[in-house]
């Protein structure tokens, strides 16, 4: 298996998704987060937020709302069982709250291998804008692909 470095620079189709209270509630249940700013509008507003607020890493859940989800794996022709998450970074410019319609745009910025091709690394950058066009967050993720051929050598 070898990944195609020509895919560096590939830009995915942007998509827009609405931030939903129910999704945040389930996300908080899963991670054990109980701060009411993530579940109670009055509490969120009292704390200075515009509404029920997205937890910091919920942005990745918004990215998973992509109607063309799995696009990276299709692009790379890689099985989902071979990937691991290598790194994730977020930069925050403004909180995202329930009712916001955010638009995500992702692109591939680097592809490289280590250990003689046993592991491949795909670096993606993401920009998230709100309904007014304001940049609310940037993200950078590294996906690690385990080369299934490496063990056979």
């Amino acid at each position: 298996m070898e990944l195609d470095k020509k895919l560096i620079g590939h830009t995915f189709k942007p998509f827009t998704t609405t931030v939903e209270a129910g999704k945040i509630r389930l996300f908080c249940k899963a991670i054990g987060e109980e701060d009411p700013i993530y579940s109670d509008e009055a509490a969120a507003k009292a704390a200075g937020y515009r509404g029920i607020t997205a937890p910091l890493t919920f942005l990745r859940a918004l990215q998973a709302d992509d109607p063309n989800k799995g696009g990276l794996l299709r692009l790379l022709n890689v099985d989902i069982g071979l990937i691991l998450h290598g790194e994730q970074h977020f930069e925050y410019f403004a909180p995202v709250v329930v009712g916001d319609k955010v638009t995500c745009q992702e692109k591939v910025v680097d592809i490289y291998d280590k250990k003689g091709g046993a592991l491949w690394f795909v670096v993606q950058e993401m920009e998230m804008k709100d309904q007014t066009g304001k940049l609310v967050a940037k993200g950078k993720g590294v996906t690690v692909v385990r080369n299934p051929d490496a063990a056979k050598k």
Partner: protein
Amino acid sequence: MTTIPKFDQVKVGDELKPLVLPPVSRHQLALYCGGSGDHNPIHVDLDFAKKFGFKDVFAHGMLSMAFLGRLVTSYAPNNKVRKLGTRFTSITWVGDVITVSGKVTGKREENGEKLIELEVRCTNQNGQDTLQGNATVAAA
């Protein structure tokens, strides 16, 4: 409610109050699968995980990163967090007990904003780091 850290009172080396989590359960991974939209079966389907060479299912890296987020927002409010990033350095298995810890590594001013730099990590019951991250928060 988390209050905004006061820049003058914060010292490099200050430690954040650690967060000790309940053991990671299969139920939690199922909840996170649905809650995060990351439906990769490797985290919830034992047959699938074994097919790809793993002894068991394992936690989503982003579940542990959410724990880093919880620690950071226990130190500074959500809307004061400027950056959060991490490397995923080892796998978190079902049953692992994760402790989330952090400390202040720097203080600086940028564009008129007082910023605090944090080093944050998740560590398992064997003392092995599973996540090594950093955060930047704004202070008052």
